[in-house]
């Protein structure tokens, strides 16, 4: 771990940067949107002044390298250690400064950096930073979710192209992305894990059909269909048939996203504000007790997250530790949403747009949405399997 003084110094530099560069229009946005803050399509996006302030802030971050703090500097990143990233995100959240953490910046970029060819890095990374490219992750299929190695979508080599046929599902933002990171079977004869490749696919190419899935919170989930979609072989990421292994490291990265802690803290803080406000009748003893437990659990989450960051800093990629963090974080997010509902009692039934809904119905929305958190990026059951087998060395069942 870097010396405490050095980290303290970095923290003050971050604060200085935010104070100097964050547009005023963003400074005063009182937001309780917490975990959903980053989600597009929210009411913030309708306001043109806010929109231009956001792109100005995005550009300041890009220049500083803090749009992608984890990426190496030579690819336009911040080259920051996890401990530094932790501080960066922490201060951003405290100051309500948007982070623009999307799939390209968070998951796809690091995967290309780790496994892509040099030529691909030069071609694919800059448009992620500029915001020109938006990506989605094409992993799950109707018959292959937790058992991802059973995926059926095919990519067949035809000259210097692959021809893709198949279906993907639960793809967040496939409706807005122009590129997708596709897991497809390139060798039907090989053992399941060894015949899968990772491809970049143009979401606007002929033969790609995207259909929004109607769901409980209007989260932008999609089904994606591929019919004879042609992908240039130069867009095969890394080597053929190594895709599953690239994916495993991508998922470890996704699970260890330390940024999650800060948004959960924000949610908890808004519940505490609500608890102390005059808006609600006095809280029941049981609700207070729950709120105290959630505060303790968030302190545990901070610690777990710090531990993952320290492992990464020591150059030891977290494996089962990432699963511990993901499992704990997502189950905690559900408990926090439930506690929120308990606090507002019958008012929890009111939905967004209903004037009487506390926090504009955000708690009810989180309550519903949180139910998916323990499914994404590997269900809680899969995480427990990983901890037991990869972490404790118990036999696979």
């Amino acid at each position, binding site marked *: 771990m870097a010396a405490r003084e050095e980290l303290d110094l970095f923290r003050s530099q971050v604060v200085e940067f935010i104070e100097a560069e964050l547009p005023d229009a963003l400074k005063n946005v009182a937001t309780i949107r917490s975990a959903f803050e980053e989600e597009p399509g929210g009411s913030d996006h309708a306001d043109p002044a806010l929109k231009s302030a956001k792109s100005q802030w995005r550009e300041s971050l890009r220049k500083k390298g803090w749009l992608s703090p984890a990426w190496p500097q030579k690819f336009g990143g911040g080259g920051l250690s996890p401990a530094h990233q932790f501080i960066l995100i922490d201060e951003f959240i405290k100051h309500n400064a948007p982070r623009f953490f999307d799939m390209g910046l968070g998951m796809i970029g690091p995967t290309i950096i780790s496994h892509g060819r040099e030529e691909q890095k030069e071609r694919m990374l800059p448009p992620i930073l500029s915001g020109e490219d938006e990506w989605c992750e094409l992993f799950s299929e109707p018959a292959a979710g937790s058992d991802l190695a059973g995926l059926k979508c095919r990519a067949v080599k035809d000259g210097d192209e692959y021809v893709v046929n198949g279906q993907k599902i639960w793809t967040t933002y496939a409706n807005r992305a122009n590129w997708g990171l596709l897991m497809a079977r390139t060798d039907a004869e090989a053992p399941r894990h060894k015949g899968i490749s990772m491809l970049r696919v143009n979401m606007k190419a002929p033969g790609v059909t995207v259909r929004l899935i109607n769901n409980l919170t209007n989260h932008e989930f999609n089904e994606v269909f591929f019919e004879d979609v042609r992908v240039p072989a130069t867009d095969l990421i890394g080597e053929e048939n190594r895709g599953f292994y690239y994916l495993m490291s991508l998922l470890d990265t996704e699970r260890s996203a330390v940024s999650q802690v800060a948004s959960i803290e924000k949610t908890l803080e808004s519940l505490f504000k609500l608890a*102390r406000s005059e808006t609600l009748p006095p809280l029941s003893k049981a609700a*207070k007790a729950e709120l105290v437990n959630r505060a*303790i659990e968030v*302190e545990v989450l901070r*610690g*777990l997250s710090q531990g993952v960051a320290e492992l990464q800093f020591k150059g030891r990629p977290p494996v089962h530790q990432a699963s511990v963090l993901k*499992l704990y974080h997502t189950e905690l997010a559900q408990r926090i949403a439930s506690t929120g509902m308990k606090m507002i009692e019958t008012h929890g039934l009111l939905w967004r747009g209903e004037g009487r809904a506390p926090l504009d119905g955000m708690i009810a929305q989180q309550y519903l949405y949180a139910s998916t958190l323990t499914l994404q990026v590997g269900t809680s059951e899969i995480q427990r*399997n990983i901890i037991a087998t990869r972490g404790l*060395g118990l*036999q696979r069942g």
Partner: protein
Amino acid sequence: MDVGLNEEQELLKNSARELLEKECPEAHVRAMEADANGYSPELWRKLAELGWHGLMIPAEFGGSGLTFYDLCIVVEEAGRALLPGPFIPNQVAAGLLVSSGSASQQKKYLPGIADGSRIHTYAFAESTGRWSADDIALQARRTSNGIVLNGAKLFVPNANVADVIWVLARSDRGFVAAAVPRTAKGVRVTTLTTMTGEKLGEVVLENVSIAKDEVIEISDLHNFSNRATVLECAYQVGLVGRDLEITVDYAKNRVAFGRPIGAFQAIQHKAADMVTDVDGMRFITYRAAAAIADRDPSANLKVAMAKAWCSDASRRVVAHGQQIHGAIGFTKEYIVQLYFRRQKHGELFWGDADFHRERIAEMLSL
């Protein structure tokens, strides 16, 4: 998962583990449970030679001047080995002296603690068996040259072998801690029979006169409680970590339905939850330890959170340990029961989860 230790701390941890694996095996833990004194003077001397007792004590008094955080690393290892005896209460007293003792008290007591020649403990709880300042009823009446103590203390760790008992008492001007020799006139020590085999004492004080020089005026009782509380947590962290190892080892070897029971997901998922609890305990404890070492104003809150969490999580871990073991875990011969029983001490000592949750609610103005 490990907390971010630096190189010296890794070294400290490894040497502590090595020593205790050799000197404090299961047989020693069992022997000390039956032993009237509850500790081995020989091992106590070895710990002194290695500088354990003087870890936090400044070099001028024969210690190594490390931090409270470093002490927690050693105490975690002590918990892993279920080290019996007065190591922790002795450190609580050392912490009190280092942080609040007068120059003459430090000079008088610290070298004896560091070299292992004197054992100190503290007496905090009373008949209520609870751990807040309100539960201290024992009176310290001021006299011209000191105080006179009257009352009774309960759950005094290792009172039977302590040379000095730091008695927390209520005076007309706040709380005091008085250095009471176990053999002083008017002091009566009885050892209580306990479930865990810990040597806890009842200490009755009848008109015990203590000179002014032997009294520490306590300006903030939390500083004292915080250290004692986090040391219990650190011991629990080591304890549950070892319970998990023993349990996983058992699950890998015990065969049922033709395969190791550890291959069943019902067992795996319990084990995974144990990992999460153990890791969570470790991090929340060391975050509290760092807050104490750094004199962070958030220390009171972080300590209460750590103890609330550790009290519940440690119980969940050992309960899973028992369930995975099946009936063998209930036998005296098998090792895991030692951990199952001792967990309860750490859960209850210095306040259970409910006790600390109430404090947290107050601190967060709920």
